């Protein structure tokens, strides 16, 4: 049984004129435990909507999503999320941001800080333990956001273009670091991006989503050994294939 099973999910947004916008139509996808999935597609293809539906931040119009065979409804701590925008709470220090999920479970302050410490180590920001978010760089903030999501021990980590706002160099560094975190924590990750390069670098499987209505075009397993070399010809080949696919699907519409 797959860890997460998306079954015939359709999402329509109501519109003023009564004819709803179909953001996703009949999306099927199975995700195995510990897999690193990247969802790529041009902007407006519904990839963020799909991720938000999995997170429980959007309702499903039709279909179901099963996590360990149980249908999900609404947000829950078994699905963690890292947002594209900076989402750290500015009034909380780094350690208290990471411990927020534990705070929600009613774990006492000293104890939850101790538990959060482990995730601070994973993201290598021990020296910023008591800093506030505005004192951190963009990359650091997203690392803390990852730690905050992980500290809640979710079964799936959902990431919505988390490195989209970062400069190219920081972005590459963050990708490498994310792979390390993934290896260390053995999490299942669903990562939405519009950068094919990023997807090929990270993913076990790349899901190509085509726009209007959002539909899965193809699921491509990436078998290149990690750490992948962006300049290698095989890397370029995979990237080219995916870009072609995306272009084709855009033209047939």
């Amino acid at each position, binding site marked *: 049984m797959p860890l997460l099973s998306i079954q015939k999910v359709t999402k329509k947004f109501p519109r003023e004129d009564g004819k709803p916008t179909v953001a996703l139509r009949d999306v099927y996808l199975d995700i195995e435990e510990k897999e690193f999935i990247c969802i790529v597609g041009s902007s407006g293809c519904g990839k963020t909507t799909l991720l938000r539906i999995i*997170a*429980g*931040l959007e309702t499903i119009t039709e279909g179901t999503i099963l996590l360990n065979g149980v249908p999900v409804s*609404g*947000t*829950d*701590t078994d*699905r*963690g*999320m890292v*947002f594209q*925008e*900076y*989402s750290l*709470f*500015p*009034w*909380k220090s780094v350690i208290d941001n990471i411990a*927020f*999920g534990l*705070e*929600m*479970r009613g774990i006492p302050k000293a104890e939850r800080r101790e538990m959060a410490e482990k995730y601070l180590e994973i993201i290598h920001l021990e020296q910023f333990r008591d800093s*506030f*978010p*505005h004192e951190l760089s963009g990359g650091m903030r997203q690392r803390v*956001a990852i730690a*905050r*999501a992980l500290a*809640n021990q979710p079964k799936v980590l959902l990431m919505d273009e988390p490195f989209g706002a970062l400069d190219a160099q920081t972005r590459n560094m963050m990708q490498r670091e994310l792979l390390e975190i993934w290896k260390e924590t053995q999490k299942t990750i669903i990562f939405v991006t519009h950068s094919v390069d990023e997807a090929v670098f990270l993913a076990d499987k790349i899901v190509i989503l085509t726009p209007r209505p959002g539909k899965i075009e193809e699921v491509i397993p990436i078998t290149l050994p990690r750490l992948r070399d962006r300049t290698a010809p095989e890397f370029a080949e995979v990237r080219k294939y995916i870009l072609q696919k995306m272009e084709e699907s855009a033209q047939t519409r």
Partner: protein
Amino acid sequence: MRILKNNTYRNILIPLATVAAFIIIWQIIAVYVVGNMFKLPSFTDVFAAFMRDMFGARGTLPQDIVISLYHFALGMAAALAIGIPTGVAMGWFRDIDIALNPIVEVIRPIPPLAWIPFAIIWFGLTHAAAAFIIFVGAVFPIIINTYTGFRNVPKVFIEAAKVLGCTKPVCLIRKIGFPSAIPSMTAGIRVSMGIGWMCLVGAEIFGAGTGKFGLGKNLWTYYNLHQMDSVVVYMLVLGIIGISIDILFRHFVDKQTVKWQNSKD
């Protein structure tokens, strides 16, 4: 922000000098130009009046200060107790906003002093009547700023909290709404305290209160007695207490929020 260390001279001595110059010019004009204690009491007249009102056998300044602060505290407490929950409810729940908005918008532009007749009819000549006027003046800035603060909570904070297990409205309001809205709320409370302090004088002059003590009340008494030196004393005391309240509040609030608020982005 100015750097204090190297600027002690500029920041302390220069203001002291201007205040001293102001007092000297005041004294000269009062004594040699106006020469009429009724139209413009001199600094020394005022100082003597202050000693009389503060420490003299018939001086009521201490009681007036206590009573006025009592009116103010009572009115502010009521304004906070009503204003914050109203602002939170309107800011967080769309339906409550739609329901209450017309009422708030109709009552808000009524000048607080226009409520004095009803304050006296409803509460009689009591401390509560004076406090009520302060309440009316203070409650709307608190409602509006609390509302704005809660309305403007970034959506991503709410969603992040939901995903982390904070899903109920009570939890979201407590853990996300309040901390996020605090800067806007404290700004509203500061404004409301300024307005409340001004309303206090009007309310007491127009007879709200027990009619015996109060800074506004006895400022008016001294006017009727043509003791303009004491009127100036009361004006200055009102000003000094007003700014002291503001400074104290800012000092208290800044300590709480400055560590994360100063470069919000």
